């Protein structure tokens, strides 16, 4: 797992699984399908990324291909930082 994906997992487990064992949440599991995050939760994720990684998340980037699993989010952060 990439460093970014690990940090994403840590954030999701701590803030959305309320400390419950995050072992059941796979790297590629959809947040939408599993119901881990809802529409306000995704805004918290955006705020966290902007604060923790120091770049602005464009409204147009708020799509499942960028946000809908631990691995997709990790890749999105990695790509955005490389730009």
């Amino acid at each position: 797992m990439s460093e970014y994906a690990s940090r994403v997992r840590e954030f999701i487990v701590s803030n959305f699984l309320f400390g419950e064992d995050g072992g059941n949440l796979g790297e590629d599991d959809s947040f939408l399908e599993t119901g881990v995050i809802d529409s306000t939760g995704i805004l918290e994720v955006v705020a966290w990324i902007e604060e923790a990684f120091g770049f602005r998340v464009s409204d147009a980037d708020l799509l499942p291909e960028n946000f809908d699993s631990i691995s997709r989010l990790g890749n999105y952060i990695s790509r955005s930082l490389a730009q």
Partner: protein
Amino acid sequence: MLVHDFLLESGNRWPDAEALVAGGRFTYADLLNASSSLAASLAESGVKPGDRIAVLTDVPFDYIVSYFGTLLAGGVFVGLNTQTSERTVLKLLSDSGSSAVLTNRKFLKFFNTSRITIDSLNLLASPGGGVVSGIACRDLNEMLHAKTDSSFVPPIIESSALAQIIYTSGTTGTPKGVMLSHQNLVANTLSTVKYLGLTENDSVMVVLPFFYSYGNSVLLTHIAAGGKLVVNQSLMYPNLILDQIIKERVTGFSGVPSTFSLLLNKSAIHDNSFPHLRYLTQAGGAMSIQLADRLSGALPDVPIFVMYGQTEAAPRLSYLEPEELRRKPGSIGKAIPGVTLEVLDQSGGPVQPGEIGELTARGENVMLGYWGQPEATAEVLRDGRLWTGDLATIDAEGYLYLHGRKSEMIKSGAHRIAPREIEDVLLEHEAVLESAVIGVDDDILGESIVACVVLKQSDACSEKDLINHCHRILPAFKVPHRIKFCIELPKTESGKVKKTELKSYN
């Protein structure tokens, strides 16, 4: 006329027209056949007119055909909130005395427990069937598709009969089941179809859940008009909603203030155009003038209908004509066709223009009462009127303005939340001495939930401990967004917490 006649008529008139786009494309004939099949299966299973059928599913097709199938069988539809907890589900099943639960696999965990001791419950159905905790679970798909050529004849039902129970958060935290008759729902649906000018050429983007009264109204009005429902009830990715509005040539969009706030703040709405969109409706709380202006700016040619209602009124009560939005900012308009609204003082007399009173309603849409709660019913149904609990003024031209509620309900997103329920859950934590829960203004949600907590001993627990505690018991949307630790809570001489004062600190 009965509620399911809407589907029977549209299904016979436009059998091949698309009725639903959600995880597939479904015609009116598809909806009608599955609903009829389910009705026959329910009747065969022993469901009798007046029996309550609880439905807990996030699959739009299953929800809709369960709705109409239940009514065709003469049953009473009880749609449960899918953002729920085991405690809530069991409470509502028990309160409604439901004899059947139609659900999908993801919710079977609520029934996979020995704690199910609801005597009335004798049928559980879910796609695929199986055995859950010793209860035989029937295959819902089989019930929906097995009997398209059935000779099943729907029982004869009076229009005054109970059709649906919609649970709302009671002010005390005990849910109240609003009883709506066929007549209530038919009257309100036809009135709404009329003032929105809905026809079979309309299609609506549905982001609102069907189990709340606003989404229920969107469902019924479009089935009545023969229109199309395009359903995507997650607002997690607002850009996907915009794409669907364009691709499906959607003509109408219904939301609460937080829906529009989310689209304006977190989507590419400004980079798109929506040539087929002919109207927006907004209800579920007052739209601020700033939000209305921003929405008009983003969608300059799309009329906005600001509407007001209550579940107790099936639900629509008033609307503001779009052309009056600028001249009457902040108004909820005037009564819809067939409804009489009056602002009355405590003695029941009309107030003067500009004077605050309680908004009251009369009309065929006013509920039968609260299920099993005659006292709560008598409090709001008095003198042939529904007393809404909303404080309002009326101007010289008859336009209505809301000025808050008599109760303390928090409006967060599309939800109504009773502070009392959250306060009681916080008190279940061993470290908590007192708690007061309030709604605090929030740009996106309308209000966010803040719990002011006094601990028995300072540092006895952390904010995270209390959030986790709430999360274990409450559905996620009722979990406080923030816990504020206080040394004491401000109180009146009679010992009542001064929530207005707490709000002013936050």
